[in-house]
């Protein structure tokens, strides 16, 4: 499959000069699509998210990075209405989203993917795609009974789905169950499905995790392509190489807070960011990171053994 991928020539064109004034965490943007204020979320005693102020620039690719358990996924959940914050409010294109349920957020044009891929296994790849389309008449239960009312729209949606699938090199799989796809293909499908709704802002939670290197390049191209189509992208990623390659702006989270932001090169040489990664050893996330896992395993072992001595 990798042989089909068009190699990107040179570096992508970066958007620059999006902020106003000095670059500090929470710096205002010239044209923000999301503005969040005082968003906090605690789990028991743990403060997972504590974002004072952050703005996401429009029509740019913003990377959200940070060590395991920094609160990136939780922040995504909050922004998209999948979780409720303890405090705080935020706007999407000037509209306040606090308290808006997740499906409405998606309808407003802010769609997301999940860190743990959510392919709808027992639906065909094509049905997965069709589900993504907005404003389907046949999704009303009563209209559904009258197929002539929605058949034409269905055909249009199918054409669009096939076109997108072709772009993501999944068109040969259209009639297969999504369950039969590989992990990387599922990531692609999830992203393609999200695009079916013509979103304004695409939020990708670790789109590259688990994707083999051959596919990575094509995924990167897709993400860059979104920007040229006028969309805004916010994505979480652990691979710094990739972040450096495609992001226009980078926001760094650690222990729930925004600790730094700026253009990729500047951020990566920022000592605060290195500190954040080094100082992350006491978090409690049970992520895929093998070292992290080992640490947790050891903690449990210690707990178990403590009593044998007594």
């Amino acid at each position, binding site marked *: 499959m990798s042989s089909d991928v068009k190699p990107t020539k040179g570096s992508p064109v970066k958007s620059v000069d999006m902020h106003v004034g000095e670059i500090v965490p929470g710096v205002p943007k010239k044209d923000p699509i999301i503005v969040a204020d005082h968003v906090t979320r605690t789990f*028991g005693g743990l403060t997972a998210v504590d974002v004072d102020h952050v703005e996401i620039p429009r029509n740019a690719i913003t990377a959200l990075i940070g060590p395991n358990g920094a609160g990136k*996924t939780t922040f*995504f*959940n909050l922004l998209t209405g*999948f*979780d409720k914050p303890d405090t705080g409010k935020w706007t999407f294109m000037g509209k306040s989203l606090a308290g808006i349920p997740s*499906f*409405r957020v998606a309808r407003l044009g802010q769609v997301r993917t*999940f*860190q*743990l891929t959510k392919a709808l296994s027992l639906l065909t790849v094509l049905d997965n795609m069709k589900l993504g389309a907005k404003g389907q008449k046949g999704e*009303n239960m009563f*209209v559904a009974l009258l197929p002539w009312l929605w058949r034409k729209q269905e055909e249009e949606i199918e054409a669009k789905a096939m076109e997108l699938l072709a772009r993501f090199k999944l068109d040969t799989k259209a009639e297969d169950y999504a369950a039969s796809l590989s992990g990387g293909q599922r990531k692609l499908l999830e992203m393609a499905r999200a695009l079916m709704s013509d979103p304004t802002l695409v939020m990708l*939670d670790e789109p590259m995790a688990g994707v083999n290197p051959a596919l990575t390049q094509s995924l990167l191209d897709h993400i860059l392509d979104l920007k040229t189509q006028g969309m805004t992208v916010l994505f979480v990623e652990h691979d710094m190489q990739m972040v450096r390659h495609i992001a226009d702006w980078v926001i760094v989270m650690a222990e729930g807070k925004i600790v730094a932001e700026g253009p990729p090169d500047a951020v990566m040489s920022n000592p605060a960011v290195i500190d954040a990664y080094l100082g992350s050893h006491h978090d409690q996330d*049970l992520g895929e990171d093998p070292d992290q*896992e080992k640490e*947790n*395993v050891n903690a*449990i*072992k210690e*707990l*178990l053994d403590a*009593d*044998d001595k007594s």
Partner: protein
Amino acid sequence: MEVTGLIDRRWTRPLVALFAILIVALTLGGGLSASADSINDDSDWQIKGNVKNDGEPLGGVLISVSGNGFTGEVKTGDDGKWSVGVPEGGKYTITLDESTLPKGVIVTDKDGVVIPPTREVEFGATKTALSNYFLGVGVRETTSFFDQFIQRIFTGLSFGLLLALAAVGLSLIFGTTGLNNFAHAEMVTFGALATLTFAVDFAWPLWAALIVAIVLSGAFGFVLDAGLWRPLRRKGVGLIPMMIVSIGLSLALRYLYQYLYGGSTRQLPGADGADLKFGPISLSPLDLLSMGISILAVIGVAFFLLRTRLGKATRAVSDNVSLAAASGIDVDRVIRIVWVIGGALAGLSGILFAFYRPGVSWDMGFQILLLIFAAVTLGGLGTAFGAVVGSIVVGLFIEISTLWIPSDMKYVGALVILILVLLVRPQGILGRKERIG
């Protein structure tokens, strides 16, 4: 067409609450009450009697009959007669509702001495049992509402504690394997049936029968895990299919019990001890013993979970199976032990329930299965201590609610509470929320 927003939380919550209140109000109001002077005429077993006030028959007196899982109410006809068909022989409790008598008239014996309005009848050689009431003028020292309340609290505690034993086992199994085990009811019945077999059919001393029954119950849990659930886990069967397997198992076992033991209710020895009086509370020594045993067992489980290595391993498995496995915990062994403990606790709970009802029958576990589930859900699925709290809430609620609602509706209250609590705290009383994404 935009179809959203039709179902809006703001008004749906009050709506549900309103409906629940409506159900309770309907039952409380009692606007519609029993009017026949006989029910279940076609039943083989009949309890009959008449009510006479100073030698004259008295109509419209409310009589209720309960026992062996049956409850029924009749009003005497103008000839003072009443009859109630019951499903089987055995002992029944008859109560004359004195509030339906003319003012100043109460239950007496033939000689006009005041006696309690509640009595027991037992079928003898025939399928008809008689219970006549004589009335006369007199005053009764009634138990005050407060005293009844205290009494109910104790009965409720005792019931709640025995529920807790079954609920903790169910909760541990759910926590470690994710299985909603519907066949837990049959594990409860198993303990009672085993006791019955050894104590009555083999005529062993009760203490020996009890020990053997509990050991067998634990072994039953072991066999179920090793013979059925572990192979299914190996096969990678999903949780909902597993739950349906447990439903099939429950059906098969329950009717197998009926096949083997028949449909009647039988008594364990020692079920009829005299009551002890503690102020307003009257408790049988059995009630006290039952509460004591339940408390000890719950403390035992708590000690196991909090203080032993295996208990901690169990909690680790409940928390995160793959992490526990990676820490070198033998997950299969932990689950096996949980099944043994769950089985033994369920069996013990069944034995205590047999004394509480009283009686052993093939579907006794199934009768309280929903209450066990309600308790586990109330406490928060998968949290063992939540299950104890949930059970006590359910037990207390059921007993206390009978002060206001008819006793054949007492389970309704508990189930309504379950639904209401889920409205306010979906994760249960002690549960925690899940993460998304």
